[in-house]
């Protein structure tokens, strides 16, 4: 029997969502079969089977998030197929012993492990000592049961692990000051909701037994940790299961858990749309930008030459089959300008500025759900044709959700073009930790006064959003000015 675990599909992957099971319990599995689609932060990848057998259990439902390395399914010889519903979410329901007893045979991995844990420390190779054996035996009960008791919370902890991590991400990287005394209880997984919930194991157990919502309590321990005293205080105040009847009768006694959410009216009005991992990560990363001081610089370029250049290139390249878009020219032009303004090709590094050695341009691509920024690497060293081919391929695969992580990570500067939607001008939000992003509006004809005469010219508005911590106005303006010059003399794009 083999546990299938959540694979690590990229260096940075910490968790994944099972977006679709290709196999069901009881199905035969061959090596190389696709078991499931796994959604990582930006992409969806297939999980292949490495072992053959019968899919005995699915430990996770579609849409569930699991940390890397956690078991998600069991493949075996078929003897452990559980035709009932494997309700791994029955946390806290019923009596613990009962659950232990009910634990079907197809879960022996856990049982074995518990026993092993309990036995191993006392195992002595000299089997003569009765007292040792007795000690070991007596113990195998106790810790084993304890382990079982803690098991139901695995799910709880698991479903929340993303919150801890996201919180850590938001809080920034500088939280390495864990005391050796361990009083800041890093081991406490959060209970639910957005913030990690620190509580002692005992407080959690008491709360579970008495049906108390831990999140509703104030912790009096270090760092706000909820300890036994807090739960007992709540119990005395009449919270929890003991007063369940009172509450039912409407005698809601004082500080009953306030955290019970309003019952969601299965409404005609509101609809909750589940966000995918990509949307969640995007939201988180964008939220990081909330406190970042940015300013915006806009300029209008005369795009006639650029568009004419594009037409000419496309005419010449027709037989090759490559078509160059305005965005491709922008990518290359930005790369060229960045090469001479390396300070713009930078990132905010928390306590330092990181000046990037290479120029990788990120291209914002709207997806049906969410946004992704595939990266054209070394755009300053590639021909416009190469860039066109590459960005076309990236955009297509981005829309299919088939990008590999390295294809949407590591950009040093980004471009967002909404020109095709006839947006004249807009501000883009920086793709952190980059120093700037270029927003490109639609090219349109406008009357232009030149040398006292009115002309009709095609103009295009470029807006640079800049992280003021990395760049000041003059430096950013110089870059934008150069970019404008390059675009207005398009030959400079290709030399």
């Amino acid at each position, binding site marked *: 029997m083999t546990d299938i675990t959540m694979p690590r599909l990229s260096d940075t992957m910490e968790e994944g969502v099972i977006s679709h099971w290709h196999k069901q319990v009881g199905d035969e599995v061959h090596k190389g079969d696709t078991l499931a689609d796994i959604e990582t932060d930006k992409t969806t990848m297939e999980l292949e089977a490495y072992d053959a057998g019968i899919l005995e259990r699915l430990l996770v439902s579609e849409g569930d998030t699991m940390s890397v390395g956690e078991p998600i399914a069991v493949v075996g010889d078929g003897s452990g197929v559980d035709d009932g519903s494997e309700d791994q979410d029955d946390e806290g329901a019923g009596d613990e012993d009962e659950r232990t007893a009910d634990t079907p045979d197809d879960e022996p991995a856990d049982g074995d492990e518990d026993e092993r844990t309990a036995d191993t420390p006392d195992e*002595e190779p000299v089997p003569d000592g009765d*007292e040792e054996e007795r000690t070991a035996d007596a113990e195998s009960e*106790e*810790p084993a049961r304890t382990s079982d008791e*803690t098991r139901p919370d695995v799910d709880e902890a698991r479903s929340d692990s993303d919150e801890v991590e996201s919180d850590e991400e938001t809080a920034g990287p500088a939280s390495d000051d864990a005391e050796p005394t361990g009083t800041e209880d890093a081991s406490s997984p959060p209970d639910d909701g957005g913030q990690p919930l620190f509580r002692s194991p005992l407080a959690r157990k008491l709360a579970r037994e008495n049906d108390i919502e831990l999140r509703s309590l104030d912790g009096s321990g270090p760092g706000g*940790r909820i300890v036994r005293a*807090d739960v007992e205080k709540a119990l005395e105040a009449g919270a929890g299961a003991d007063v369940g009847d009172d509450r039912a009768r409407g005698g809601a006694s004082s500080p009953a858990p306030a955290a019970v959410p309003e019952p969601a009216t299965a409404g005609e009005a509101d609809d909750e749309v589940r966000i995918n991992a990509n949307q969640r990560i995007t939201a988180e990363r964008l939220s990081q930008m909330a406190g970042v001081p940015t300013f915006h610089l806009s300029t209008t370029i005369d795009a006639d030459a650029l568009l004419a250049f594009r037409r000419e290139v496309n005419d010449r390249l027709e037989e090759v089959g490559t078509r160059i878009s305005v965005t491709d020219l922008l990518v290359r032009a930005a790369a060229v300008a960045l090469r001479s303004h390396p300070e713009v090709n930078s990132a905010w590094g928390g306590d330092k500025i990181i000046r990037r050695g290479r120029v990788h341009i990120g291209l914002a691509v709207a997806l049906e759900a969410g946004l992704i920024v595939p990266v054209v690497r070394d755009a300053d060293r590639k021909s416009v044709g190469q860039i066109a081919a590459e960005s076309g391929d990236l955009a297509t695969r981005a829309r299919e959700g088939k990008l590999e992580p390295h294809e949407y990570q590591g950009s040093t500067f980004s471009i967002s073009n909404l020109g095709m939607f006839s947006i004249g001008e807009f501000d883009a939000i920086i793709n952190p930790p980059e120093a700037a992003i270029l927003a490109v509006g639609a090219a349109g004809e406008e009357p232009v006064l030149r040398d006292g005469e009115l002309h009709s010219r095609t103009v295009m508005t470029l807006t640079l959003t800049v992280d003021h911590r990395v760049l000041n106005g003059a430096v950013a303006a110089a870059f934008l000015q150069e970019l404008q010059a390059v675009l207005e003399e398009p030959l400079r794009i290709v030399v």
Partner: protein
Amino acid sequence: MPVISYREALNSTLRSEMQRDEDVFLIGEEIGTFEGSYKITEGLLEEFGPKRVRDTPISEEGFTGIAIGAAMLGLRPVLEYMTLNFSLLALDQVVNHAAKIYTMFGGQTAVPMVIRAPGGGGQQLAATHSQNLEVWYAHVPGLKLVAPSNPADAKGLLTAAIRDDDPVIVLENLSLYNTKGEVPDGDHVTEIGTATVARQGSDITVISYSRGIRTALQVAEELEEDGVSVEVVDLRSLRPLDRRTFCESVRRTTRAVVHEDDWLSYGIGAEVAASVQEGAFDFLDAPVRRVAAAEVPLPYAKPLERAALPDTDDLRRVIRDVLDATSFTGQEKS
């Protein structure tokens, strides 16, 4: 029950076991004519003669090998190292031979030997003579290791060790030799592998052994006056380790501190703390805390040596921290 010293308890136990079983003999440096560096073998050469009280040259590896061979052939040697630190010279004999012969020879021959040695710091004997090497031996399957904290256990555990068919190390502590306590008359055997609750309490469990028990008991008494009820668990046997006893205690008190004279990292305390986590997780109201010696070679200078070893202040402070961390009010158990 008579009140005698730890030293006297060991001496009288050796005597009575030698009287009881002719196969028991003593071997070590200066244990005969000089009656032992710490006078544990006082009077035994006179009583039992040089055949059963064998003085050896300074040759730890050699006489350890001799003792192992004698044990394999049916005798029951009780070997003394002047200090546990010298056992390092015989480490291969102890770890690779004494501990493994029974299993490696498929149970055809056992090694019923006892190794006695004083260890620990606090006597201004400097770094190489003041070590707590118990974890080195507690780590090795095939060895048993006991560390009595009082005269009664010294008698009970040494008796059990001599009668045990496996190699047993009896860890004595230099600073305990002169301590006194009641010791049961007659045959008194303390089962190896059993911890004991040295003092009952309900608010917090302090788990310790050997000299640390004295510190723990003193702190427990002091804290009693402040309304804190401290339970003290004496491990007594470091291998096998009686996890059940201390886990049950922690389940009652919901808080745990491990106290030891050894260095903190990778020590007995680490093993105990991990076991508490495995066996009493849901009953903990705060993380398990450890009190141990500073991680330095123990200094010779008295004030520095004192500063390096954990004392009652250190233990009291950590207990207070744990109580504070769990919003202990002092009346919650009343």
